[in-house]
């Protein structure tokens, strides 16, 4: 098999002053792969994701990325302009709180249009149709395209944020506990939606969660973190069914197996 490597991470380390955020992280991410990051609260999941998505610059380490155009690049030394451009179209972050990823002053359709306008031609019908298409894809009512985000429920806001990010056909999507703030029943439905879409459009994704059911259900590969370091990594099924590290064993035994 010749699947393209799109991210190579080496010794990635971040300290908040003396406080360790994450340390010595190594992994490769291949096109179409869904990588899960699990671990207890404070284990460094969000710190790692923020380093990967350019939100914070790590204290040490290397991230090589391989874009569809332009070959392999050293992500950490990209100029700010290129990083921003990447985030606005080719990469996307789905925030835990949808309000961090949506512009509340513009309509649902406007939010999706904003992302598309970073890459597309200036054509109103195209923006309109693509907006509706993605709302339906995330199981929203596309008749509500002109409503503002605050008129939607939390779950719908999250669906809108996902529509917005996916509409530009991104190469990598980063999600940090995308259903964290929602009711359990709503969580399950949104995860269903995410699952069906990611398989459908073959997106590459890194998702942070502390929910092992989500991990089993969604991811191909897993990083298990504790105290800022990766204690175990491997194919999701292998890690969950045959955990090697004592912490992973503890983690997997603490949930009901489905």
């Amino acid at each position, binding site marked *: 098999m010749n699947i393209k490597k799109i991210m190579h991470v080496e010794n990635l380390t971040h300290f908040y002053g003396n406080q360790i955020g994450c340390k010595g992280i190594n992994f490769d991410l291949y096109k179409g792969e869904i990588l899960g990051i699990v671990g207890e609260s404070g284990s460094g999941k969000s710190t790692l994701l923020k380093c990967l998505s350019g939100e914070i610059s790590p204290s040490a380490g290397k991230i090589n990325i391989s874009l569809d155009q332009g070959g392999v690049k050293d992500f950490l030394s990209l100029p700010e302009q290129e990083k921003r451009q990447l985030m606005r179209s080719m990469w996307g972050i789905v925030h835990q709180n949808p309000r961090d990823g949506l512009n509340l002053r513009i309509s649902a359709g*406007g939010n999706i249009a904003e992302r598309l306008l970073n890459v597309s031609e*200036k*054509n*109103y019908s195209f923006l309109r149709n693509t907006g509706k298409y993605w709302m339906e894809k995330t199981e929203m009512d596309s008749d509500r395209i002109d409503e503002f985000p605050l008129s939607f429920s939390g779950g719908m806001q999250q669906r809108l944020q996902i529509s917005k990010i996916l509409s530009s056909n991104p190469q990598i999507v980063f999600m940090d506990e995308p259903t964290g703030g929602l009711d359990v029943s709503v969580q399950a439905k949104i995860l269903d939606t995410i699952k069906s879409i990611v398989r459908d459009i073959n997106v590459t994704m890194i998702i942070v969660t502390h929910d092992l059911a989500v991990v089993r259900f969604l991811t191909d590969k897993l990083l298990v973190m504790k105290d800022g370091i990766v204690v175990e990594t491997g194919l999701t099924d292998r890690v969950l069914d045959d955990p090697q590290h004592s912490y992973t064993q503890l983690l997997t035994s603490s949930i009901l197996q489905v």
Partner: protein
Amino acid sequence: MKTGFNFAYLDEATKRMIRRKILKAVCIPGYQCPFGGREMPLAYGWGTGGIQVTASIIGKQDILKVIDQGADDTTNAVSIKNFFKRVCNIMTTDRTAEASLIQTRHRIPETTLNKDQIIVYQVPQPEPLRKLEPKEKETRKLHAYKEYALMHVKLYEEISQFGSVIKTWAYPVETNNRYITDPTPIPKFDNPKMNNMEALQLFGAGREKRIYAIPPYTKVKSLDFDDHPFEIQTWDECCSICGSTKSYLDEIIINNEGKKNFICSDTDFCKSNLEKNK
């Protein structure tokens, strides 16, 4: 000329500083250059930015025209004209074709400007992105990185809500395929005149202390969508004084019953047109 003032009111060092900024602005069409704006003997909002630009470039040979909403005889236009008469002892005119320098608020004259003329716009708010992004630090980045999606989102929202873009004045333009620029509160009717204009266009914002420029023969494009192209205002009526069908018309109410009349907003154009048709 009133003694006790330097020519054109500002001291020479200040004028030189402003001219340097103007040159920079001309080199980077549509880019807002910060400048060390001076206090002028009138309040912000009355054209202090435009006056400083005019004062820095005006010469003894210049013939100045000042308009406010297209009219030469409004209070604001007259007092700016009188100010320059006092501090420069120069000639002024109402005739667009005779003027070498035109300071304007809210209109571009109907008469096509030529390469020997300069038009100075008074600018209340130089930043076209301000309403969409309140933080100056961020708007500077948006300009620097040419991240203008928000601007089109604004148009998208208007089309979605009202069926078409309803913004009729201060309609944003893209200058020289690069910077999004606020054309000042002129009606969008005037936007096409900015494109490829032979005259140099200078913009002065007093309160915000910004100068920007559009050099002669520069491409100026009003933002739009392929399938919702930019359009200017049109009227079913013609000017009730001169009969013009090509000029920007102001609507005026002429009696207590609310009867409406339309007249040219450009008073000089209206007069000349009337004479020509006699």
